[in-house]
């Protein structure tokens, strides 16, 4: 286990964590401000990936594909908010979970009807398809470097938006005490619509960027939703800063678990036992992290509500 191996794994963890952050940021804001559980957030991620893959294939422009994915998904999300989610604000969580779970089923079947059941091929933009020689002995995929760069930029932009603008102030006010914000004259409904669209845009961006390195298929939204939920629980519901720190933690722990646990186990246990135990332990590493954080800080690392 040399330094290059460790460094490469750190980069991998960082990249995965940043993509998780893009998804979790929208989810945590929606949940934090309006106390609304939106399971269909993963479907917006899927929509972004599908639109990007299709537009990229048809037009050949990757930047155009990402833009189209974000715009289309935001439009779909606005419609979704208007028709369904808006009516769920005052209902209890069970109703929200049931309704948004229903949306997942409809979204999956709609995607099947439009694009078919077979996974789509999303190609990496030609200029970024190959590896970049970071230093001697470590060629790293150029595309993953783009992901890390884009993720960091969006995180910075979101930080500035939430902390340094009037809209951000309203968002924070809504997250920390919705009733009080309403009494002070904030139109929380409008803020929420904005946040919902913003969250959808971020999820679509993540979907579009992840499309070339993951498979664009029905059900991809549900698969990413679970780690995203773990992230918002660890970070503290409603906190963007918490989501950022937690996403990086989950990304690093998950990657480290897969990379370092199995070899370490093989060193001390018989191979057949290690082969069974290693992947199982690696798979639960992020849940162990969540349990540990919740034991020490039951409201998450950075709770939005003091």
């Amino acid at each position, binding site marked *: 286990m040399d330094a290059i191996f460790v460094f490469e794994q750190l980069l991998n963890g960082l990249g995965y964590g940043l993509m998780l952050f893009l998804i979790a940021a929208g989810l945590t804001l929606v949940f934090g401000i309006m106390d609304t559980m939106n399971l269909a957030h993963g479907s917006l991620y899927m929509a972004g990936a599908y639109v990007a893959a299709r537009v990229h294939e048809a037009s050949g422009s990757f930047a155009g594909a990402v833009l189209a994915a974000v715009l289309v998904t935001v439009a779909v999300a606005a419609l979704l908010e208007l028709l369904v989610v808006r009516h769920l604000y005052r209902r209890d969580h069970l109703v929200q979970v049931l309704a948004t779970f229903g949306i997942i089923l409809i979204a999956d079947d709609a995607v099947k009807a439009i694009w078919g059941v077979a996974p789509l*091929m999303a190609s990496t933009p030609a200029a970024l398809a190959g590896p970049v020689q970071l230093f001697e002995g470590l060629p790293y995929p150029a595309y993953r470097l783009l992901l890390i760069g884009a993720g960091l930029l969006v995180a910075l932009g979101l930080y500035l938006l939430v902390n340094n603008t009037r809209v951000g102030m309203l968002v924070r006010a809504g997250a920390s005490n919705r009733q009080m914000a309403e009494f002070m004259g904030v139109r929380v409904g409008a803020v929420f619509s904005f946040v919902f669209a913003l969250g959808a845009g971020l999820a679509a961006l993540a979907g579009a960027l992840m499309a070339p390195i993951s498979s664009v298929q029905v059900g991809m939204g549900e698969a990413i939703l679970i780690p995203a939920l773990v992230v918002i629980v660890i970070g503290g519901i409603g906190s963007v800063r918490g989501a950022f720190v937690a996403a990086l933690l989950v990304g690093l722990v998950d*990657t480290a678990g897969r990379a370092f646990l199995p070899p370490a186990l093989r060193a001390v246990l018989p191979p057949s036992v290690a082969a069974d135990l290693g992947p199982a332990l690696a798979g639960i590493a992020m849940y162990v992290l969540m349990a540990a954080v919740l034991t020490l800080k039951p409201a998450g690392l950075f709770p939005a509500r003091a």
Partner: protein
Amino acid sequence: MLQMKNLAVALALCGAAAAHAADIKVGIALDISGPFAALGAEARDGFELAIEKLGGKLGGQPAEFLRTDFGGNPEQANQLVARYLQRDKIDFFTGPIGSNAALAVGPALFAAKVPYLSANPGPSAYAGEKCSPYFFAQYQNDTYDEAAGKVANEKGYKNVVLIAPNYPAGKDHLNGFKRLYKGAVKDEIYTKLGQIDYAAEIAQIRAAKPDAVFFFLPGAMGINFVKQFVGGGLKDIPLIAPGFSADEDVIQAVGEPMIGVLNTAHWTHDLQNPANAEFVSAFRKKYDGRYPSVYAAMAYDTLMAMDAAVRDVGGKVADREAVLKALKSPSFSSVRGEFKYGVNNFPVQNYYLREVGKDADGRITNKLVGTTLEQHQDAYVGACKM
């Protein structure tokens, strides 16, 4: 009144007799939604083509081909088979893509004495201890991997890294590879089933610096792995896979990075024999130029085998002993070429090495390289007492 009753009985008898003479029923359990949807759709296309070629008949007799999707769910497969057996009284069964569904539906079919011609999976249980005279396989699951192990020997790969999902079939496939592979296994990586990001595993492979990597990652897992493997700058390490991880569905989804992947199968679309040439050209004509996968070829072959068996028994499919005997010594030209069945009704046949490359039109597809195992039999036949 009595006359009326007699008439009714006579009519009913006539009806029964007519129905009996008219219909040979084939129950096809389609797998076109759920986890094996892409492969199930390939198989469906193969079935459709065969039915078209046979003119909706089997052995010249009118036949009915029942087609129902069961969504890759063994529980649902069981219900469908119960319906096929009790309501439709089928004479043949085929269809499921997954080994789990094949294992779930077997017992009911064998008890009802309905021949089950598998159009894909050949689970080790049916090849060994639980073998049945009513089950006919296309191949045994591990044999593809055994062939891949031999390929690794022949290429002179001294050490390899193996990667598969952490579930029973994943372990079976890696054990199959190790059965004939003589070099050293540097690392055996088991990943979560359905994993999409392989960056951590690719870093492990980079650190291990093996001569080659053998992967069994069906469907989307394999698509992601190969893309990320090549994107990570590991293109110089050869990839070997059983044919399932490098068939048309995967190749078309991955694209360029697939080029050069070595894989093994008991059939390939450029295999030279008249039956195969006819099948491949008919398939490409019907399905806008795309090449058939091994799933489509096996589905097609399965119906051809039924057709030949019905012809051999002169349409008397109620005589199950005769049908089994006819199935066991196939009198049709298979698209895979020559083969015969072992004691356990699993084929003794050739396995070929294929390499992904480009055809004359620039389409990325598998190309036949050569024969890896000649008239090879599975490892479980000894355990079959039949």
